[in-house]
């Protein structure tokens, strides 16, 4: 049985069109058709390369204090101007971008991991497990995120600083809390996918061939539920970046010596009348990143929707 399946698939694709495309290249083709999503991908790629490579090319220290050059607008010496201590803003934004993007990606990974586990458990086991987990999801959905985030940061900040040091401690706490408060949509999505996929013939076939539960889930159900999860994960990166920036903007995120984009905005907001550039550049960086991620999510939604595969 198993050896015949590939030949049958090959037959079908040969009949369909001359060159068979893999699932992913097909998705990529559809993604590229979404012009704004492609544009978003280019902008995001530019941002990622800039924050990863930028500090090696643009070798200005982020914490060099120079009071003679304080609060200057953009110039050749300081392409994006300086802040109230005369520190170079371009260097700080490039460095801060690393943290902001890292927070976004790490928090997304946590949210997706929890979400997939909870959703898979609820969808697979059903019954009481399902009921309990879904009530838990509903409960988490009605928690107000930012106030709770603030409460947790307030209560655990000092203890974690002591144990892990200021940078790692705050980073881990922020990532875990943001991720831990954003898994619910993924859990609901995965559960819904499980409920419908569980009854599909190919899963039934695997089951009747004696595949153990874990294999059914990992090899047959999860890969088919991946599309919506990828889309939700993409949007989560943007949401996590905004959450981190909000925290830092309120002065309760990273300490001042770690200039994330939100933190730079926090420092800049009291000097708006004589140094607008200080706030505008990091704000634009956040905006462009979030906008391009959202567009990428939109493009992926179109590209990964299996219903559209049949349509085109």
């Amino acid at each position: 049985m198993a050896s015949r399946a590939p030949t049958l698939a090959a037959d079908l694709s040969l009949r369909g069109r001359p060159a068979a495309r893999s699932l992913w290249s097909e998705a990529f083709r559809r993604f590229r058709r979404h012009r704004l999503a492609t544009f978003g991908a280019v902008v995001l790629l530019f941002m990622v390369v800039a924050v990863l490579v930028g500090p090696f090319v643009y070798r200005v220290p982020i914490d060099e204090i120079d009071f003679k050059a304080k609060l200057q607008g953009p110039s050749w010496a300081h392409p994006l101007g300086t802040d109230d201590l005369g520190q170079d803003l371009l260097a700080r934004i490039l460095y801060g971008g690393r943290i902001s993007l890292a927070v976004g990606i790490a928090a997304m990974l946590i949210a997706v991991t929890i979400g997939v586990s909870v959703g898979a458990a609820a969808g697979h086991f059903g019954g009481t497990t399902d009921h309990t987990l879904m009530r838990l999801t509903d409960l988490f959905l009605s928690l107000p995120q930012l106030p709770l985030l603030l409460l947790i940061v307030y209560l655990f900040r000092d203890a974690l600083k002591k144990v892990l040091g200021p940078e790692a401690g705050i980073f881990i706490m922020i990532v875990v809390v943001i991720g831990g408060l954003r898994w619910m949509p993924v859990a609901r999505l995965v559960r819904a996918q499980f409920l419908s996929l569980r009854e599909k013939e190919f899963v039934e076939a695997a089951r009747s061939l004696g595949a153990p539960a874990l294999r059914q889930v990992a090899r047959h159900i999860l890969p088919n539920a991946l599309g919506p999860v990828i889309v939700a994960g993409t949007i989560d990166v943007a949401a996590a970046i905004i959450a981190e920036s909000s925290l830092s903007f309120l002065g309760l995120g990273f300490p001042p010596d770690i200039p994330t984009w939100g933190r730079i905005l926090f420092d800049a907001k009291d000097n708006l009348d004589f140094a607008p550039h200080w706030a505008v550049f990091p704000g634009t960086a956040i905006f462009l990143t979030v906008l391009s991620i959202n567009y990428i999510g939109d493009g992926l939604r179109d590209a990964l929707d299996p219903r559209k595969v049949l349509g085109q």
Partner: protein
Amino acid sequence: MFKYVIRRLLIAVPVLAGISLVLFTILALAPGDPFEELATNPNVPREVAQALRKQFGLDDPVMVRYVRWFGSMAQGDWGFSFVSRVNVSTLILQRLPTSLFVLGTAQLLGILIALPIGTLSAVRPYSLFDQVATTLAFVGFSLPTFFTGILFILFFSIYLDWLPFIYRAAIGAACWRWWWERARQAIMPVAVLGLFQGAALTRFVRSAVLEVIRLDYINTARAKGLSERVTVVKHAVRNALIPVVTLVALQIPTIFTGAVITEQIFRVPGIGSLLISSILANDTPVIMAITFVFSGLVVLFNLLADILYGWLDPRITYR
């Protein structure tokens, strides 16, 4: 209908209890001690501190403490602010109206923007209007409120010098002038929040109307000879609103996030800025109470959405 409302109310109680359990667990897990200041303060004798700990039951088992805490929260005894030296409930009741005013107006503005624009977009999908509106909506909800707030201050307060960027609770003016000043200072916070909400809502409204407008009964309405206006407003939009109401309710926690930030930017004396200042001042009872109030509001609005949902969708039976 009455039974349905009662049932919904009864479901809200365990949710509130669950939220309070989560909050209390966080507090109980947290290192440190609300009486740390007393313990380290040399002016407070050790015996007094011990007696206080005993009086407040800090040495009791966690479950006992939770039940007692929940009991007193439910009775309206929310504790005493360490910093302001007044009851937490008084402090919050002072601030809550301002917050609700700004939030409510902003939400109303968001709905007023989203409904017509989303509907028009969906009626003529992929037209120029739709493309402009969709793009603007995308930009709108990708702009974080803290950045929009800063841009508004830069443009309207500093560059044009039209609007004040600090919100004052007490205005030293009389009669119509008082109302004018009040409205003027509320414009920016309300606009920042409202535009953000409106942008997110526009997308919901558009996709909901788009889903409905292709259905057969809309064609029937048109075939009957109803005008386009009546078809769209009475037949399409009313049905499209059903999923939108749920989405609006799910958005409520996000609105509070925006509210905390806008209140902080424009120094609106609401509970959001009270939360921030309490965190900076280590005022634990106030922080706990405000987080609880926010959760309570979320549950309340979800409840309202449920009831509205029942009213909008006759297919839901009130049982």
